[in-house]
């Protein structure tokens, strides 16, 4: 077995356990809500349409968006409950994932449940009344048993959907089999991506088969078969969940990471340093950019690395650019005052947004700066990462230089680099610390009008950890210690196609290079 696959297998018990816990809870909760809804919808014509339409509507929301939307919603609810009841709850991780997946599982159960109950023949319904059943007895002893095969078919569909969609809970901070897929996509580790997809597909298939046994048992009134299916599901859940008894205990420190290689490497580095000082550290990876800061401010995360320009624009909503030092200083005071967040300091390198082009293409077109680019933009195509065109940085350079690109396309970062090297797009949004700039023979374009804010990588500490001596001792040595060249090399060692390192290996080698271990 290759070391990559071996490493993937090593994390399987934890990922699988969370995936199973999440899917099973969502499906159980979905069933608990959907069945009464189906019964009500089958009884009352007036609520049937709204219920079915509502469930269908939820289904049209892309599952990733549904998951992401629950975070701000829960944040508001949690804040309200903290005000009213003095008790808040975690808006990140399990809860938003559970709620979104529960909603997602409802449509097939509600729809099949309603159809199943309605398709019981009127003669049977009347016979049930005629022999003296109450409406409740009729439901439990006649309608539900007769609708059971149809309902079980709906549950099967819901189970397959839920298990598949559960992989998308990784970006809201819930560990799942999606961790393989997201970090694999990010580091171009296709083995990891395939491993994650395969594991989740296999889980879905096995669940489907076992539920199929229950369905067939219900249809053929073969209790033994249904019992085998149910026992299989139950045993499967119990076995899958056993690792959580050890993994589930709350770690003392939660280290956050957004969804790209540099973040994984820095998070691994910080986690290892915390553990070296006798702390316990746990990673929450693949957080969305907007989610990470709020998660830290609310104490979901204890520490993560963000970039001064990002915080400046997105958290403080500032559009001006007073210069690198001033931005850093003002951030430190403002975040402390506003949210109690500690800006421990800059790591020593910038990961700024920069527009990059292929060297040969830039030379041929005579483009060295954004001013040159603006003059030529009418004939060029621009590629951005998934959030770039929605970010204030794009607005800022667009206003400063007046671009008029022929077309704009958004990519997952990995594919964005592919697109620029293959010539599908002419210019891309890149990060100055990205190892692929040098490796792919790209050049970054100068920003003479200083439209792009500075992007110093800074370590942020959660409000309730600002006086945590162990944490501060573990992380202080990193401040000012990482040069952009060192970071670029480390990033490239993870992003390159051959001899890829895993983020944890890159972190170790970076520590060694910098003499930090």
């Amino acid at each position: 077995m290759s070391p990559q696959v071996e490493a993937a297998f090593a994390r399987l018990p934890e990922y699988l356990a969370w995936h199973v816990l999440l899917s099973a809870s969502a499906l159980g909760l979905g069933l608990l809500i959907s069945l009464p809804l189906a019964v009500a919808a089958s009884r009352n014509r007036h609520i049937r349409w709204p219920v079915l339409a509502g469930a269908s509507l939820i289904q049209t929301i892309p599952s990733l968006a549904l998951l992401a939307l629950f975070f701000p919603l829960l944040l508001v609810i949690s804040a309200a409950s903290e005000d009213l009841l003095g008790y808040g709850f975690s808006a990140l991780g399990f809860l938003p994932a559970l709620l979104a997946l529960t909603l997602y599982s409802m449509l097939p159960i509600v729809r099949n449940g309603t159809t199943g109950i309605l398709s019981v023949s009127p003669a049977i319904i009347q016979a049930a009344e005629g022999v003296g059943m109450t409406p409740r007895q009729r439901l439990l002893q006649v309608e539900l048993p007769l609708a059971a095969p149809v309902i079980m078919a709906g549950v099967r569909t819901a189970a397959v959907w839920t298990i598949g969609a559960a992989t998308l809970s990784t970006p809201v901070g819930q560990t799942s089999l999606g961790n393989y897929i997201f970090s694999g996509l990010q580091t171009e580790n296709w083995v990891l991506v395939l491993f994650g997809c395969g594991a989740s597909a296999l889980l879905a298939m096995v669940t489907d088969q076992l539920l199929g046994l229950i369905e067939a048992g219900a249809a053929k009134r073969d209790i033994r078969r249904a019992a085998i299916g149910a026992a299989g599901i139950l045993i499967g859940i119990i076995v899958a969940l056993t690792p959580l008894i050890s993994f589930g205990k709350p770690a003392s420190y939660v280290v956050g990471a957004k969804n790209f290689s540099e973040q994984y490497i820095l998070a691994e580095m910080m986690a290892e340093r915390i553990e070296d000082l006798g702390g316990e550290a746990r990673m929450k990876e693949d957080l969305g950019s907007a989610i990470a800061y709020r998660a830290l401010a609310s104490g979901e995360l204890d520490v993560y690395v963000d970039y001064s320009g990002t915080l400046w624009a997105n958290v403080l909503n500032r559009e001006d650019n007073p210069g690198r030092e001033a931005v850093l200083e003002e951030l430190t005071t403002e975040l402390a005052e506003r949210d109690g967040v500690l800006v421990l300091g800059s790591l020593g390198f910038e990961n700024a947004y920069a527009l990059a082009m292929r060297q040969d293409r830039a030379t041929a077109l005579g483009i060295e700066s954004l001013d040159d680019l603006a003059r030529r933009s009418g004939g060029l195509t621009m590629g951005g990462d998934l959030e770039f065109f929605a970010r204030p940085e794009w607005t800022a350079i667009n206003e400063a230089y007046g671009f008029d690109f022929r077309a704009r396309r958004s990519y997952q970062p990995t594919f964005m680099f592919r697109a620029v090297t293959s010539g599908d797009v002419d210019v891309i949004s890149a990060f100055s610390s990205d190892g692929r700039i040098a490796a792919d023979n790209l050049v970054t374009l100068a920003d003479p009008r200083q439209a792009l804010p500075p992007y110093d990588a800074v370590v942020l500490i959660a409000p309730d950890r600002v006086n945590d001596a162990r944490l501060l001792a573990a992380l202080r040595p990193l401040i000012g210690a990482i040069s952009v060249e060192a970071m670029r090399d480390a990033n490239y060692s993870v992003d390159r196609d051959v001899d890829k390192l895993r983020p944890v290996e890159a972190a170790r080698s970076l520590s060694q290079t910098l003499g930090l271990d």
Partner: protein
Amino acid sequence: MADPRIALERITKTYGGHQALADVSLQIAAGEFVALVGASGSGKTTLLKTINGLIKPDSGEVRIEGESVGDLTPHLLRRRIGYVFQEVGLFPHLTVAENIGITPKLLGWDKARRAVRAAELLDLVALPQEMGGRFPAALSGGQQQRVGVARALAAEPHIVLMDEPFGALDPLTRDSLGDDYRALHERLNLSTVMVTHDMTEALLLADRIVVVADGRLIADGTPQALAASTDPAVAALLAAPRRQAERLRARLGETA
């Protein structure tokens, strides 16, 4: 005089402009066996269902043993009245024995007592005991109909309402089952209302025949009284079995 077991007073029922029952009054005493006859769509099933409250009349009152049906809890009333459906309506997910034992189960009889009762009733409707464990789908139409009769009788009701209970049976089984039921009716002093399309069956089994036409009762009397009726519609109903009997005699006489 004691209350009649069943009393219908001035019952009307209208379905979107169509009068299914028009001002129907009927009293049935304990021990009476009444046959309801009449053309298809005349309102027989509607009449039968108003008795156990499956259909609520638009006006009029139904009383069971002196109590107004409107004042009784519907499911408690129905557990006291056996009903054989025209469409049979056996529960497909329950075995034959479970189907027979359903009302006793709702009444809280224990398992052993239900099993004994199911076995008795299988005997009564002339089905082998082995069939108790089968599902209704594995029975012929006539066998299903007999289970329907057994289910109606299971909780030992005093009132039995039967909507064409023997329609799908061969003449031999039909005859003997009719006789067996009539004997049971007498032994337990039941009140039975049976809908039938077979005039001969009505004449042979019932104490009293009620003729329904377009939602009205056009005749009500003993078989002998009906035979003497001068009403053309009633005469026409009786003419059919008479004619059949004559033709039968003529034919069998020829071949003999």
